[in-house]
């Protein structure tokens, strides 16, 4: 059953191939000054589109495979309680050049926690304990390097989450690629950038760079798929940074615009801040666990190297999270050193660690676990634009709209949520509370800013941040499936919304919603597909009957929140905030989404000139919108009501359920915060939770829609008077809660001040002074050597030698008389002298 890794490998590498082809075929000639013709640039887009569509088809094939009854990733412990344990097939030959082979996670014996067909009571579920690891395929494709125990590989860890992410990413990337062939059409001729003002009061004229856009889109898709498939944290980090750099290229696609290049820098730098935390998490994991692999690896001689998950959730612990020995040893460095100094051997150290582990009051190793989890979450905060690192995402709107659609739905921001979902088994309840709190703050903050934004793309950007907050909240409160389910559905409707806004911008050439209005008459397809997207994100639906995709996923989040609050509310009444804030956020979501729709498409045109020039987008763009709107409506559906059978698995939610990480079922009490309990997700589907959740979620959504309708459609209450009556709140949200200003004063200006100080004092004063005086010393020394050594000693020696040679020549000259007879005499005399000398030598020297 090596077909799924192979399929996904090909799907993953195809965009890279397209990137390489475009880079070599187009950019290399350009580097040498050869201009690529516009007719040729088009083929770059075709290559890119073909690659991503093929990747999409391959991913879909892999996903349908997972729906088959005997699929290789079949859950070992299914939602409905079928404790089926299909044996994994033999190791595959995919990685035959590496010592590591495919190895299936070991099958667990049927555990009683599987029996969830009937509603179990709270105590039963807690007693049931945790779930066994999901079936996953792990292996290495290529070893980058091995340094002692540290083994850096390109490997894979494939479960149904990976497959789902692959389908979502490649599908949305395909839509965006196809849409961009229409949207970026301007780039196929010499481009006049009206937003760049040159010093001579002209606009910038430049060559179009159609192919470059697709080149980076391909790189972007490749990097994101790499994160999804990666089998270890080191590889994740590599692709994490690749996503960062490709987003940098794409956000700064209009590099000549100052705002675009600044936004690209901002996105990159803010992400670096988060990645710093991620590096700390990575170091902690490496120090304490000694591996980066998610899953277990079996090497050539059959030894199984346990990955992060199985080290932290041992089978004999019933898969409960416990700090690994390395973490305890890390925290108890002093004691371990003491034991070793006193001559203790490995067994003594082991004994010490066991004693420390049994010391239930001290919580050895918990802080290391927390630091590792929160550190990795810091990286996710940066990528997924969570408070306080959310500031880059609205500025990323400077990129072309297809990029925004990709960044905001499938690739960049999804990476953070995906990674939290991936490392979920190693997050302690305390770390999850951090995740939930950050998500909660983010969602309400961003939703409030979106209320007053007038730039159509910025409204969507803040709504993205807000929805990401929802996902983080769900994950943090224990709703693993709920959070990732919302990630998938959100990807569909948010890419739809962005592409619709792109279509609007394409038509009216402005982002400002105050200049739009009534556009639904001019561009019906865009208007009604966008309406579908708005209904989906608002979570409109009829409970238990029908719902847009966002309805299902938001419902799951609210259920989990209510369940969490019911579990913890007794001891901490403030934990009900985790219910109230998302509900307010949901109301705000539907309010600002319908505000956007009404301002753009309903009412009468506010700018008749722009309205007259508006037109529906070309078919290549409109068709993509229609396809995406279908998914936005029905991505959340499942066919579980059809009954058992093949179709039972059909649907995103049950697909995700199969990948439920090891050991996260059941109530998880905190260790450091002993009163905190992360509740069991399955229990959140109990009727006592489901009904109030469903009702409250739909009520707040409808309330938001109603509010928007009153203010912006019927205009019973004027928006201006509302603005006046809440001027302080309005000022706060209009200025984005002054986060940019705050960071400017907190970080940017102090940095500039320090930099200016360093430049003036350290650089110019001290370093330049040292260098200048060094230069003076060297010059003086050189002068001494030049005059003393060179001119007197060396020059004199050479000159004297030359003079003496000259004199010798002159004196020898007189011998050359030119008279032949004299020469003969010289010969004779010379010969005689030689004879005499020779005979004297023979007589005295040789003969003795």
């Amino acid at each position, binding site marked *: 059953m090596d077909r799924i890794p192979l399929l996904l490998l090909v799907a993953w590498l195809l965009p890279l191939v397209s990137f390489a082809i475009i880079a070599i075929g187009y950019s290399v000639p350009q580097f040498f000054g050869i201009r690529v013709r516009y007719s040729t640039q088009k083929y770059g887009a075709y290559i890119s589109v073909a690659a991503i569509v093929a990747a999409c088809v391959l991913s879909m094939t892999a996903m349908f495979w997972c729906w088959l009854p005997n699929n290789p990733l079949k859950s070992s412990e299914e939602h409905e309680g079928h404790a089926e344990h299909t044996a994994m097939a033999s190791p595959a030959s995919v990685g035959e050049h590496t010592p590591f082979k495919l190895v299936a996670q070991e099958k667990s014996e049927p555990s009683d926690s599987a029996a969830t067909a009937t509603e179990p009571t709270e105590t039963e579920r807690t007693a049931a304990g945790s779930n066994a690891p999901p079936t996953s395929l792990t292996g290495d494709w290529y070893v980058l390097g091995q340094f002692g125990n540290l083994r850096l590989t390109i490997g894979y860890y494939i479960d149904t989450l990976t497959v789902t992410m692959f389908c979502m990413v490649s599908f949305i990337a395909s839509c965006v690629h196809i849409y961009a062939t229409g949207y970026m059409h301007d780039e196929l001729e010499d481009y006049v950038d009206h937003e760049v003002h040159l010093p001579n009061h002209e606009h910038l004229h430049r060559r179009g760079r159609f192919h470059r856009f697709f080149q980076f889109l391909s790189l972007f898709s490749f990097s994101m798929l790499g994160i999804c498939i990666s089998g270890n944290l080191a590889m994740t980090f590599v692709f994490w940074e690749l996503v960062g750099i490709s987003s940098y290229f794409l956000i700064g696609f209009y590099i000549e615009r100052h705002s675009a290049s600044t936004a690209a820098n901002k996105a990159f730098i803010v992400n670096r801040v988060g990645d710093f935390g991620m590096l700390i998490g990575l170091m902690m994991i490496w120090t304490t666990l000694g591996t980066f692999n998610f899953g277990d690896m079996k090497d050539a001689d059959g030894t199984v190297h346990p990955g992060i998950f199985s080290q932290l959730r041992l089978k004999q612990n019933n898969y409960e999270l416990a700090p690994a020995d390395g973490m305890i040893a890390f925290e108890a460095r002093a004691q371990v050193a003491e034991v070793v100094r006193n001559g203790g051997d490995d067994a003594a150290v082991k004994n010490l660690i066991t004693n420390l582990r049994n010391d239930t009051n001290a919580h050895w190793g918990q802080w290391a676990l927390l630091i590792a989890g929160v550190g990795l979450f810091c990286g996710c905060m940066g990528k997924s634009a969570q408070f306080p690192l959310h500031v880059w995402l609205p500025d990323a709107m400077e990129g072309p709209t297809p990029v925004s659609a990709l960044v905001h739905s499938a690739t960049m921001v999804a990476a953070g949520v995906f990674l939290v979902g991936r490392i979920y088994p190693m997050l302690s309840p305390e770390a999850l509370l951090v995740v939930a709190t950050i998500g909660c703050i983010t969602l309400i903050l961003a939703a409030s800013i979106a209320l007053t934004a007038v730039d159509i793309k910025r409204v969507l950007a803040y709504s993205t941040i807000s929805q990401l907050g929802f996902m983080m909240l769900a994950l943090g409160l224990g709703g693993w499936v709920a959070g990732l389910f919302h990630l998938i559905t959100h990807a569909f409707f948010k890419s739809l919304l962005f592409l619709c806004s792109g279509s609007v911008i394409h038509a009216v050439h402005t982002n400002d919603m105050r200049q739009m209005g009534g556009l639904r008459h001019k561009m019906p397809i865009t208007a009604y597909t966008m309406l579908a997207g708005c209904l989906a994100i608002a979570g409109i639906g009829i409970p238990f009957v029908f719902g847009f995709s966002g309805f299902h996923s938001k419902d799951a989040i609210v259920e989990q929140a209510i369940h969490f609050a019911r579990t913890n509310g007794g001891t901490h009444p403030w934990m009900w905030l985790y219910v109230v804030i998302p509900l307010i956020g949901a109301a705000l979501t539907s309010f600002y989404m319908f505000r956007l729709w009404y301002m753009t498409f309903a009412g009468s045109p506010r700018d008749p000139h722009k309205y007259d020039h508006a037109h529906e987008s070309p078919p290549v763009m409109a068709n993509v919108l229609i396809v995406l709107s279908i998914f936005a409506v029905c991505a959340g559906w499942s066919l579980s009501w059809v009954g058992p059978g093949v179709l039972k698995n059909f649907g995103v939610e049950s697909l995700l359920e199969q990948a439920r990480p090891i050991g996260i079922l059941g109530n998880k009490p905190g260790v450091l915060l002993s009163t905190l309990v992360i509740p069991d997700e399955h229990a959140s589907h109990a009727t006592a939770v489901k009904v109030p959740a469903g009702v409250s979620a739909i009520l707040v959504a409808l309330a938001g829609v109603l509010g928007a309708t009153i203010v912006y459609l019927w205009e019973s209450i004027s928006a201006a008077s509302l603005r006046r009556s809440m001027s302080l709140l309005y000022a706060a949200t209009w200025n984005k809660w002054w986060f940019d200003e705050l960071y400017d004063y907190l970080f940017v200006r102090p940095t500039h001040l320090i930099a200016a100080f360093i430049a003036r004092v350290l650089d110019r004063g001290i370093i330049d002074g040292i260098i200048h005086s060094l230069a003076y010393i060297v010059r003086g020394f050189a002068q001494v050597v030049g005059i003393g050594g060179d001119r007197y000693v060396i020059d004199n020696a050479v000159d004297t030698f030359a003079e003496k040679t000259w004199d010798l020549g002159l004196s020898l000259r*007189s*011998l*050359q*008389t*030119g*008279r*032949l*007879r004299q020469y003969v005499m010289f010969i004779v005399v010379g010969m005689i002298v030689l004879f005499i000398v020779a005979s004297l030598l023979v007589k005295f020297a040789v003969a003795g």
Partner: protein
Amino acid sequence: MTPYLLASSLTEPVGVRHFLVVGAFLFICGVVCMATKRNALGILMGIELVLNGANLNFIAFGSPYLRQASESIGLDGQLMSLFVIVLAAAEAAVALAIALNFYNSFNTIDVDRADQLQG
């Protein structure tokens, strides 16, 4: 014995020494001729004498009859002198050409006038 070297030569049968004496005599004559003659042709004659004196030495040392040495095939000396004769002919041709040119330039073949080579 040395003072009587020449005297004893008269009483001995003809051998290498006699040839050497004649060769040395010829050589001295040639050298003196070269050193004293101002005419270029005279100098050429002196050169011929010097060469022939040397030739005599080659023949004497190369001859098995004179040296009563059986290990030699006896032709090396003669071969050498044949080379010398050929070279002398070539040299004479070159020298006569020089002399002719010199005469054309200076209207004389007095070598004392040929001091152009002086340094």
